[in-house]
């Protein structure tokens, strides 16, 4: 409110930009209302839930408790659940911003028409990401309800975790969108899928990175899902410390880099 009074022009420009991005989001909402999209959406969060139950709860019986970085002991299910949450945020965002985005960019050529209006490539990217967040947000919310119900976190920390899952999704969505602009054909998605699965297995998801040899450990700690997992684990286990700031900064930087790349490349591809 105060900012609106002091910087009316700057605010109205920001407002204008945001509403441009939201109009791109609105296009997707309109399209989703027709498609058999809701089934696709449903299948997206069943997978991490199955992992949580089979590995977290099932395998957890065999594994016993695990020590957090601060030394506190948690059950294996409590350890694995936030990692599944982060992976689900990643998968949800990537599903929207890789395959679907690529299809709209190269196959359906939706943005050719969009960019003939005042909408800019950056607004298209942000609008698509907001859409991906709507989808990822639903996944995360449901997953957090299950976690709280199974006593894998408290309702309070679950509430804190929800916006953080959006940040994780935003960062991965932006990255995926940026990479998608580089792909030449549908076959290239295999690279993304393999990478995604590798991240899912090794980002401190099923065991702490310190269990691995040092070189691998360093590799893990520079990849993005690790930061999402560590951040969400600190929150859902109720033990955040100053390192969460580093993880947040990493994810914000990734989001900005991905968005910049996506909009630049979209300009190169479509505004020839």
């Amino acid at each position, binding site marked *: 409110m105060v900012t609106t009074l002091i910087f009316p022009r700057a605010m109205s420009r920001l407002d*204008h930009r945001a*509403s*441009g991005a939201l*109009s*791109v989001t*609105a*296009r997707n909402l*309109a*399209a989703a209302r*027709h*498609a058999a999209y809701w089934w696709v959406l449903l299948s997206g969060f069943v997978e991490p839930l199955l992992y949580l139950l089979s590995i977290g709860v099932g395998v957890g019986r065999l594994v016993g408790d695990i020590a957090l970085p601060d030394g506190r002991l948690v059950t294996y299910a409590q350890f694995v659940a936030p990692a599944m949450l982060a992976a689900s945020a990643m998968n949800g965002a990537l599903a929207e911003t890789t395959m679907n985005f690529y299809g709209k960019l190269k196959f*359906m*050529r*939706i943005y*050719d*028409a*969009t*960019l*003939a*209006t*005042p*909408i*800019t490539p950056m607004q298209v990217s942000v609008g698509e990401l907001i859409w991906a967040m709507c989808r990822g947000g639903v996944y995360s919310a449901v997953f957090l309800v299950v976690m709280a119900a199974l006593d894998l976190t408290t309702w309070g920390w679950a509430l804190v975790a929800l916006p953080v899952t959006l940040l994780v999704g935003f960062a991965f969505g932006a990255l995926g969108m940026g990479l998608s602009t580089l792909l030449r054909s549908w076959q290239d998605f295999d690279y993304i899928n393999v990478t995604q699965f590798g991240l899912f297995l090794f980002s401190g998801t099923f065991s702490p990175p310190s269990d691995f040899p040092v070189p691998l450990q360093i590799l893990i700690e520079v990849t993005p899902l690790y930061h999402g997992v560590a951040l969400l684990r600190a929150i859902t286990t109720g033990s955040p410390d100053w390192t969460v700031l580093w993880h947040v900064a990493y994810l914000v930087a990734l989001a900005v880099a991905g968005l910049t790349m996506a909009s630049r490349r979209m300009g190169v591809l*479509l*505004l*020839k």
Partner: protein
Amino acid sequence: MAEDEALIAATALVKQFGDFTAVDGIDVRVRAGEAFGFLGPNGAGKSSTMRMIGCVSRPTGGALRILGLDAAKDGAAIRARLGVCPQQDSLDLELTVLENLTVYARYFNIPRKVARARAMELLDFVQLADRAGDKVEPLSGGMKRRLTIARALVNEPEIVLLDEPTTGLDPQARHLVWERLFRLKQRGVTLVLTTHYMDEAEQLCDRLVVMDAGRIVAEGSPRELIDRHSTREVLEVRFGNDPLDGFADKLDGIGERVEVLPDRILVYTGDGDAAAAQVHGRGLTPSSVLVRRGSLEDVFLQLTGRTLVD
């Protein structure tokens, strides 16, 4: 024409793709309220020019001012005031006919209610109101084209760009599109269109430029161009399947000029019937004889030595 009268002012405009020059230094002025055409064969550089005017393609060289703004700097502000009907329809196949308009309207920050009312009005205008709730895919080519035109009008643009509005449509569908475009023109909307159909250019354009290989080879109203570069009438004679090589000499002196094409011979003349009589007078017996008015096709042939549509 004074600079400030022109809605579109291109000066020495160039577009290159790598080291290929698609638009090679063209000068164009489009005035408010006129229907302006780019006539030329495939590959002439019409679409490249239109995309630069639509601010979705950066000029490689020259100056381009649209609605008093610089195309290189104020793209978004210019696009807000343009309506664009690109060569490929680019409709959203995941949306309904109506949604294609309402969703597009949101890109111009048009309030939802206004967008809906305007969309219904426009569907009426392009005679698609009964298809409002349908998917786009099953529409005929002509219907898709009309929907694209409606979409281009959703922001009440000051200039409408139409890249080959009727290419690929059957005659009936073409006439329907022409008729709608003519109404727009009557309302005072500035139309800029490209075409490789000379009849389309003659019907719709107040003024046009003839483009070939990235350059403008002539400029004027259709009538002026025909008067300047063709004759009032043209006599077309055919001689069945006979080779036509030797006929230039045999017809020499008839009319103002004789042009031998692979399948027919054109005699440019003020009086076609008199020329036909002369042909017969020389003892020649064409398999068919046709007298028609001079057209933009003849202008193009005269200027470039080639036909528009091959």
